[in-house]
């Protein structure tokens, strides 16, 4: 299709006044060949599979079709298509260039230059928080620009499921690696994800397993492992099970000096090199766990216990419930949860299979446009709507400050249960008015930056959303009246992002 033809087709669905923003872009041509309903459908699905539609992903979706687009989101072989500037920034990060033991050792060495213990502590903390800031920046850049969106959304979900708090001890240094280990497993089996999360130094520090030794039991990790990570609070375990699982986990700790030692082989037996089992601190007696005997065999018994928990029917139900809440509804339909739990159990906890069960369900289709956006989804989707290929890297820190304002900063949940997924826990007057302020700030910044750079249009997808073919299908008359009565582009963007419809997905 020639450019002229594109323009002609576009003029049929988009008011002339909105045309210029898309005359030169791929989205213009794709929009031209799609009808309003299919674009609306794409927008809704991109709100669930991705952090909202970006110009690029909407184009891709419409070009590829729904099935192929989703398949691409599941495929681990799909290369990420980050804007070059974003890719270069991430590549240049320290957290990308060295392994966790190397980063840890380097931070320690840097701190060792300080004259006294107090200052060494400070210097180490400073080094760790630099790495944490990189992790936050990387997360924000990927959320907005990565084309591996389903992976990114799932990474958020699982980081929240296996929530750790940035303020605990020196945990900050582990968090970039923690995110990476979880991200690498979101399309695998639940048991592998469970191992990666629970046995990671970040979790061992956060839930005090470093202090869990034979004769000096600390139940913290054991309890949360059953209550939050696997079985669920009513999952059928007893206080004895907590105690015994704590026994299984005794001696499992962070090897802080891993790098100093001469390692003949890389294997501590755990995925993370800095995790180890100290035999002398392990309770090697036989234990009963959920009615089954577990022989005291050090790390083998840890893996056995984790597998037992990962494959438990209560776990299948608990995980399915949370995924259905996250992807479908705050009131998860029991039938869908049951179907998902069945899929979970019959596929050995294969997470893509569970997700496909959700996405192909009638409950999922029927829920589109009816779910409140999480604070994090509100922010990411706003930036994605306005995303350009010549990405503004400075946006990452702005995004993170907005996440704090709306109460969902990365690794910022103090309690191990993670941020609440249901709107009743955050969608109050405080949250709403903060969102309107954030909408205003984003609009104002975008307009200002655009005036400075003038490289790409500021509209992003806003014109598509507001076009006569689509706007009427998505927005209420009240919202359209507000948006169309705007006195400036800035106001138009404010009302668009502040509208009830933009705050749903």
């Amino acid at each position, binding site marked *: 299709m020639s450019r002229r033809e594109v323009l002609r087709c576009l003029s049929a669905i988009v008011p002339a006044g909105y045309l210029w923003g898309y005359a030169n872009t791929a989205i213009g041509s794709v929009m031209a060949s799609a009808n309003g309903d299919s674009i609306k459908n794409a927008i809704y699905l991109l709100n669930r599979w991705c952090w909202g539609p970006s110009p690029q992903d909407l184009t891709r979706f419409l070009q590829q079709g729904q099935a192929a687009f989703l398949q691409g989101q599941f495929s681990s072989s799909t290369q990420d298509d980050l804007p070059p500037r974003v890719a270069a920034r991430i590549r240049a990060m320290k957290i990308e260039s060295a392994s966790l033991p190397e980063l840890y050792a380097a931070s320690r060495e840097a701190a060792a230059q300080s004259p006294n213990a107090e200052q060494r502590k400070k210097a180490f903390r400073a080094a760790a928080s630099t790495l944490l800031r990189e992790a936050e920046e990387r997360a924000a850049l990927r959320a907005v620009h990565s084309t591996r969106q389903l992976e990114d959304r799932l990474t958020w979900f699982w980081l929240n499921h296996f929530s750790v708090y940035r*303020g605990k001890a020196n945990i900050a240094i582990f968090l970039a690696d923690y995110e990476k280990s979880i991200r690498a497993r979101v399309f695998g089996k639940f048991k592998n994800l469970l191992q990666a999360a629970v046995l990671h130094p970040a979790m061992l520090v956060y839930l005090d397993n470093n202090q869990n030794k034979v004769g000096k039991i600390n139940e913290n990790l054991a*309890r949360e492992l059953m*209550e939050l990570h696997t079985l669920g*609070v009513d999952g059928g375990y007893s206080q004895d099970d907590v105690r015994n699982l704590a026994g299984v986990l005794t001696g499992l700790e962070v090897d802080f000096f891993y790098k100093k030692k001469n390692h003949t082989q890389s294997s501590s037996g755990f995925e993370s090199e800095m995790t180890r089992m100290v035999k002398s601190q392990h309770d090697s007696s036989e234990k009963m766990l959920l009615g089954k005997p577990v022989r005291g065999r050090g790390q083998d018994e840890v893996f056995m216990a984790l597998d037992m928990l990962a494959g438990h029917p209560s776990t299948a139900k608990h995980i399915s419930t949370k995924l259905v809440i996250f992807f479908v509804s705050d009131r998860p339909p029991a039938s869908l949860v049951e179907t998902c739990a069945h899929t979970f159990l019959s596929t050995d906890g294969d997470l893509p299979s569970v997700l496909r069960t959700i996405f192909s369900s009638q409950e999922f289709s029927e829920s589109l446009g009816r779910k409140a956006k999480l604070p994090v989804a509100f922010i990411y989707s706003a930036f994605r709507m306005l995303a350009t290929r010549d990405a503004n890297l400075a946006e990452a820190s702005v995004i993170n400050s907005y996440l704090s*304002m709306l*109460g969902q900063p990365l690794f910022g949940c*103090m*309690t191990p*249960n993670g941020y609440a997924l249901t709107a*009743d*826990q*955050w*969608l*109050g*007057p*405080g*949250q*709403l*008015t*903060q969102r*309107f*302020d954030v909408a*205003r*700030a984003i609009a*104002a910044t975008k307009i200002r930056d655009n005036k400075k750079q003038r490289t790409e249009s500021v509209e992003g997808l806003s014109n598509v959303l507001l076009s006569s073919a689509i706007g009427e299908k998505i927005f*209420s008359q*009240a*919202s359209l*009246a*507000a948006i169309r*009565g705007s006195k400036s582009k800035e*106001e138009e963007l*404010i*009302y668009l992002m*502040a*509208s*009830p419809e933009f705050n749903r997905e």
Partner: protein
Amino acid sequence: MKRRDLLGLGFLAASSNVMAKVAQVPTDNKLLFVFLRGGYDSANLLVPIDSEFYYESRPTIGIKKIAETDGDGAVPIADGWGLNSALRETILEWYKKGEAAFVPFAGIEEYSRSHFKTQDLLELAQPVDRPMNYQSGLFGRLVDVLTSDRRRARPAAFTRQPPVIFRGGGNIVNIDLNRRPSKLSESQISIIEKMYEGTELGGSVGVGFEAMKATPADAEREMKAASRNAMLPSGFKGVAETVAKLMRDQYSLGFIDVGGWDTHVRQGGSRGYLHDRFRELGEGLSAFPKTLGDTWKKCIILVVSEFGRTFRENGNGGTDHGSGTTYWILGGGVNGGKILGQQSDVKRENLHMDREFKILNSYAQFVGTVCNQMFDFSSSDMAKLLAGANFEKSYRII
């Protein structure tokens, strides 16, 4: 005011438990929970002025006993106790009028001395020896017990995020009074409000904007980790009048948190850091009787902290975490002008672990007593509200 009078002004014509089952939801009794996050130093608030051991233990931060009008120190208010003169014009006046009472030797019988665990335990108010259920907060249950129609309990949290204490209570409004001033114009605000008119969020948006407009622009925004994003007392002072108005006009069950109490270093004595924080807190609280007017008679304000601090000062002119603390009960109708609850002599052998005030008055008993006497709940309602709590040998707060 007698308890019966308060009840009469409130929602119950009679105080029998049978009546409580069929009674209307309270419409004008007000309960505000002020949470001092960080563990405030209660020994320098309610000072054991007759204890030599106190002055031995706090050579640099101890607060001297003074006459009522005589500079800064501890003003005697009861047998063996003096009140920090930072509260001279505020809480001390209320105490003399019978509108303030204190419960020393108070706390949660859990000795991790972790801010976060103990703060959670306080907001959840569940038995300390059982796993915490994070979906069931004290006020969440109070809302449930008060009424199945949640709007009639009219709860609100004056915090950035809905706090743990309201967990399980449904869609509770939270109003962040300490936010950055909005740059939205009046007309933009009204246009946004119109977009939400008639939607299920319409009410929340209206309330949110109202609170936002009423919030002073210069509120303190400094934060501390142990304070869990709670505002500092100076910030509280800035927003207290707004909170008082909202409590007067819209809400009957409120929660607000104030941080800045984790005084490990240089807390000062008769003057200094902590003295100033107490003063600001008292000045903030004084907005309530002023603003509430007649409703002050039906209002109870609880001021609590997750724990107290070490009885002895540490090497940095501060104090570390210690279990026993002092709770405050304020309000026009409270049984005030008294020190309530069990007490023991303040001397070394009476310390817990030679470190801190003993807990003689448990938190569960305290909040149970307040709720029971304020709302006259049945025993089954009380069991729902505070499983396992025993407040039979309790004190009168109304």
